[in-house]
């Protein structure tokens, strides 16, 4: 313990750095797993998408996406379905999040269990439930007839409406959670002040509450839109072959045509779209809030 001064301080710093590196290395197993099973395979797909059938570098896979009308239709369907599903989620989710945010926290947490239930029931189970409910002799058709809404059974499934119902059901919690969080964070004194200054309830909502809830709403709808872009199970099961989205196109290219070039080009387009949306979302709000908010 005799040596003092700079040499000792440098030694301590070195030891501290060594310890921090050792601690950091605790994350290496997880890192290796993610790199080996995801980063490298996806990078490999990237590479494949730029190869022609004979193995030479080319843009032929991307040209096909533009030239072949079937791919154009797939992309159009994907945007259409994702946009519509997001819109319906906003229309249904905003009022729900609003009412939940007005409840006492205890009651709201209880209701949140209902919103969160989908998180622990399989997508497959929920999609199957809709299949059963919406089929020709299913519950919804039955009740519609009894209520006199329609005479003959209506096609509610294996088409676009069926797909939308299933998608909205799966995506709604992803909108409600961040939206609910941002609504809870709004300071109620602003509304009190608005009312004090003579604003009607409607005006106070329109001019004060709604603008303050916009960032949460935008972030939530972007997340829903991103997740919709990659949807596979719902369109495959409820679309009946009539609703082919990007993910379904990719799967078909692989499973039926073994066309890795086409599938990976479509996959890269999907990834770039999702990344762009995510970037916009990250500008609007803190992302960890979106993913971490269902911890409580």
């Amino acid at each position, binding site marked *: 313990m005799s040596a003092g001064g700079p040499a000792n301080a440098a030694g301590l710093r070195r030891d501290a750095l060594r310890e*921090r590196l050792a601690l950091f290395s605790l994350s290496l197993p997880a890192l290796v797993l993610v790199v080996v099973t995801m980063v490298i395979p996806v990078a490999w797909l990237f590479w494949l998408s730029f190869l022609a059938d004979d193995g030479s570098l080319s843009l032929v896979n991307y040209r096909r996406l533009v030239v072949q009308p079937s791919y154009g239709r797939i992309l159009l369907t994907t945007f259409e379905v994702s946009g519509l599903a997001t819109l319906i989620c906003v229309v249904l989710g905003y009022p*729900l999040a609003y009412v939940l945010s007005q409840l006492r926290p205890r009651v709201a947490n209880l209701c949140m269990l209902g919103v969160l*239930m989908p998180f622990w*029931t399989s997508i497959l189970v929920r999609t199957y439930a809709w299949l059963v409910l919406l089929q020709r002799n299913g519950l919804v058709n039955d009740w519609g007839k009894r209520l006199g809404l329609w005479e003959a059974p209506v096609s509610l499934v294996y088409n676009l409406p069926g797909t939308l119902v299933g998608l909205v059901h799966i995506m709604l919690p992803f909108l409600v959670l961040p939206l609910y969080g941002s609504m809870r964070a709004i300071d109620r004194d602003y509304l009190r002040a608005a009312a004090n200054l003579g604003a009607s*309830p409607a005006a106070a909502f329109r001019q004060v509450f709604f603008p303050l809830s916009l960032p949460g709403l935008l972030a939530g709808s972007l997340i829903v839109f991103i997740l919709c872009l990659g949807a596979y199970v719902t369109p495959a099961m409820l679309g009946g072959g009539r609703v082919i989205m990007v993910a379904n196109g990719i799967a078909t290219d692989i499973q039926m045509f073994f066309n890795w070039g086409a599938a990976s080009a479509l996959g890269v387009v*999907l990834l770039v779209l999702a990344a762009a949306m995510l970037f916009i979302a990250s500008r609007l709000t803190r992302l960890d809030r979106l993913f971490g908010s269902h911890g409580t």
Partner: protein
Amino acid sequence: MSWLGGPASETQITHRARLWLYVLAALVMAFLVLPTLIVIPMSFSASQYLEFPPRHWSLRWYANYFGSAVWMQATATSLKAGALTMLVATPLGTMAAYGLFVSRLRWARLVPALLLAPIVVPVILVGIGIFYAYVKLKLVNTLLGLVLAHSMLAVPLVLVVVSAALKSYDMSQERAARSLGASRPLAFLLVTLPQIRFAVISSAVLAFLTSFDEVVVAMFVSGGDNSTLTRAMFDALRDQIDPTIAAISTVMILISSLLVVLSQVFGRSR
């Protein structure tokens, strides 16, 4: 009723004036919760045609399910894959969360972003990418391959949940233990881990369910004797709406709910 005329919020709007809003919210809640639950009574129907309410009750679809060697094997595969995924992803994710939290290296900020990527990258892309890699590695249709893939999907969830718990944990307790002579691993095991126990248990449940409920990756990398339950269900549903699936769905809802409730109970008892 006086409650209806009372003020409902800071803007002095009455409950009566926004009764429509409550009704709408209740309907949306019903839309979220009921469709899944309706499968349960339907699974006890005696009819081919899944009526609600069932006119005659029976256990024939359960007999179908539990009597079928194929369904039982798929169920066993899913349970095994889920349990193994939990055993791989929970320690890996917890170690990563702890390591990244205490080391605070500036250049390592990219690591969490990389570890969270599996949440963001569309799962179909992950599915075909892994399929391509597994063909080369001869891991297609193996339990090992399935568990590795599902663990990769589950690690980010464990990371998010455990990191959140560490953020609200007072690290000086661990420092105190170490200044009293405990080694770092011992201090972590005896002081820190018991306090973030709830997060670790819920993330373990999350990891199990991630694997148990997963469809897309399983579709590409599981098959033959190692088909998962979800894959077998997905394939079966392509042909027809088999009521046996209602029985399986009910069992799946039961397993998931049981796990979630158990993890909540464990958390409350601290």
